[in-house]
């Protein structure tokens, strides 16, 4: 057993359990150092997001109980009954653990398939653990590979490019028109939860300026403080429509609040600068005929919902391609790991044989009194050369031939065969 993973996620544990087993940065660092000081793990990394809490580790060579030890440590650390925890926890080893991590960073294991945040969270968790000195060669390599998998999946498949919610669909569409939103202004009409979701998306995409307009100014002020926006007075369209590039509207109103004529005038006043409108109201807030105005892009709930439907199907179609990338990197990682182990094995074998040789030669030559010191020296050298010659070729081949390394599946068995001390014990 080389790599162990114990964790729980949105599929195995309800939110009440997840929130009890989550880690703050301080807790993550404390857990990592305790796990190492107690000898449960040699390398550790804690990955804690709102949908998962996982501990990755490399146990010491002698330990075959690391998963059990890890589970009981977790229940102690988080003060959760072991029986509650054991229902939710999953354990993965070696190939499965590596594969799990790679799928996580690819966004394949996320609640929202292909979401982008997880890659950043994996990167942060790795950086944190690395800086704390909690990781070692195995986890370093594994997490660097995981980040590469995440990047490749996002650039080579469409898993992460498609919007998954109405709010993100709208914001992504705005980016199709305006490019980066850093220099752009958005006007949000209404201050309900939908408005808030869109504002979150807009802020994530770096919107330049946020304007808020709401019938109740008070509620708008609260949201404005939260999002660093500016409140503009309700209904003063002439001023309000002058600067924004994006308008988001979700107001409960029987009649459209913005009519075609109003928008036409506004467009003329702003020199037909392009305007993207997301009408998220039901009944609709913007008169549908406004879509015919030059340089106005008007999308309503159904349009955006259609895009979300389309991209959900598209994302699901991309899963096999993403899985292929994951598998490719799992293979790469395992063969790296095997090669490190094999090369290490040969080095150990050589040290062991050299040691045996010295003892052996000294013992046998005790009786050969007729040999001069020079002869003894020469005998010893000859034996050494023979050993080197015997070991050199396999060592070179192991370093050079990938295919050979792949064929040797069970390094532990080789270690057992050549290096175990059973006879002497």
């Amino acid at each position, binding site marked *: 057993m080389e790599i162990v993973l114990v964790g729980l996620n949105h599929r195995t544990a309800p939110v009440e359990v997840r929130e009890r087993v989550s880690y703050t940065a301080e807790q993550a660092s404390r857990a990592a150092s305790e796990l190492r000081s107690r000898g449960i793990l040699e390398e550790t990394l804690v990955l804690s997001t709102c949908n998962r809490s996982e501990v990755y580790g490399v146990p010491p060579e002698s330990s075959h109980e690391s998963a059990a030890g890890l589970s009981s440590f977790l229940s102690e650390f988080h003060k959760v009954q072991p029986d509650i925890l054991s229902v939710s926890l999953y354990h993965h080893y070696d190939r499965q653990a590596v594969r799990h991590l790679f799928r996580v960073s690819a966004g394949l294991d996320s609640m929202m398939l292909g979401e982008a945040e997880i890659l950043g969270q994996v990167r942060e968790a790795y950086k944190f653990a690395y800086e704390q000195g909690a990781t070692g060669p195995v986890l370093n390599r594994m997490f660097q590979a995981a980040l590469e998998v995440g990047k490749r999946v996002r650039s080579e498949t469409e898993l992460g490019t498609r919007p998954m919610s109405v709010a993100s669909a709208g914001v992504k569409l705005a980016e199709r028109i305006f490019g980066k939103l850093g220099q752009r202004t958005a006007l949000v009409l209404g201050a309900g939860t939908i408005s808030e979701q869109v504002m979150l998306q807009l802020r994530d995409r770096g919107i330049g300026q946020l304007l808020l307009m709401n019938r109740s100014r008070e509620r708008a002020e609260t949201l404005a403080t939260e999002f660093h926006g500016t409140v503009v007075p309700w209904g003063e369209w002439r001023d309000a429509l002058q600067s924004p590039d994006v308008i988001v509207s979700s107001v409960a109103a029987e009649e459209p609040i913005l009519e075609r004529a109003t928008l036409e005038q506004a467009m003329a006043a702003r020199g037909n600068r*392009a305007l993207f409108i997301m009408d998220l109201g039901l009944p609709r807030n913007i008169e549908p005929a406004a879509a015919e105005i030059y340089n106005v892009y008007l999308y309503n709930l159904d349009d955006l919902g259609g895009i979300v439907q389309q991209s959900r199907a598209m994302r699901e179609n991309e899963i096999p391609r993403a899985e292929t990338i994951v598998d490719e990197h799992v293979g790469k990682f395992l063969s790296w790991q095997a090669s490190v182990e094999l090369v290490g094995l040969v080095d150990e074998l050589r040290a062991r044989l050299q040691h045996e040789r010295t003892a052996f030669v000294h013992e046998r030559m005790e009786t050969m009194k007729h040999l001069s010191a020079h002869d003894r020296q020469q005998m010893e050298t000859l034996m050494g050369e023979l050993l080197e010659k015997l070991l050199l070729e396999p060592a070179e081949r192991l370093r050079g031939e990938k295919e050979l390394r792949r064929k040797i599946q069970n390094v532990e068995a080789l270690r057992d065969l050549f290096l175990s001390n059973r006879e002497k014990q």
Partner: protein
Amino acid sequence: MLLGLGLVTHYFALLERSRGLHTVPYHDLYGSMSLFGWLLALTYLALEFYHQQRSVGAFAVPFILAFFITAHLAPADRLSPTVAHGVVFALHVTLSILAYAAFALSFVLSVIYLAEERLLRSRKLSNVVWRLPSLELLERMSHSSVLVGVISIAIGTVLGFIWVDRLTGQYWFYDPKYVITLVVLFLYLLYFQLARSTAWRGARASKLCVFNFFVVVMSFTVVNLYLSHSHRYF
């Protein structure tokens, strides 16, 4: 990268050809198309570098390649010495062709713009929309491209007059090419102005840009082949 490498090698091929002629390759279709293709790729790379954006490449590069291929299919005259020599003349030819290359690029960008705009306005989004560069970027790149074109065609034309003056002692002799060049220059200046700040910005300006390029193509074909006697292939 690959395009950059291609540019360098193509540059040497051009150099070879102009050594043989002692001037820039202009007098046969192969030469001028080849120079055209080279400058087209150069302009594109410059724009890409300037705007720090590579997403347009997938759409623009095939177009550039098409030009290279056409150039290779075009008949190459044997290299015969010509009357036209000199730095001024060489610059005149190069700048004019650079201008046409830049206009061609802005044409491609505008066509992509119009297609994407249509898709976005129809609200029927196909998968391709998510791969296209943003409208704003296409517009900006098309702008810079036209700016390059306008500046180089202006300088190129002035140099042409200077050269004619040196050769014949008179500034002006009537050639339909002059008229069409002035028309082209005017149309592109109009586009530049309209697309920047007026009610025409967006799709209308892009349509004008597409139309302008048809005028350029006219200048390349009808005027060159049938009307002008001093501008055969550019």
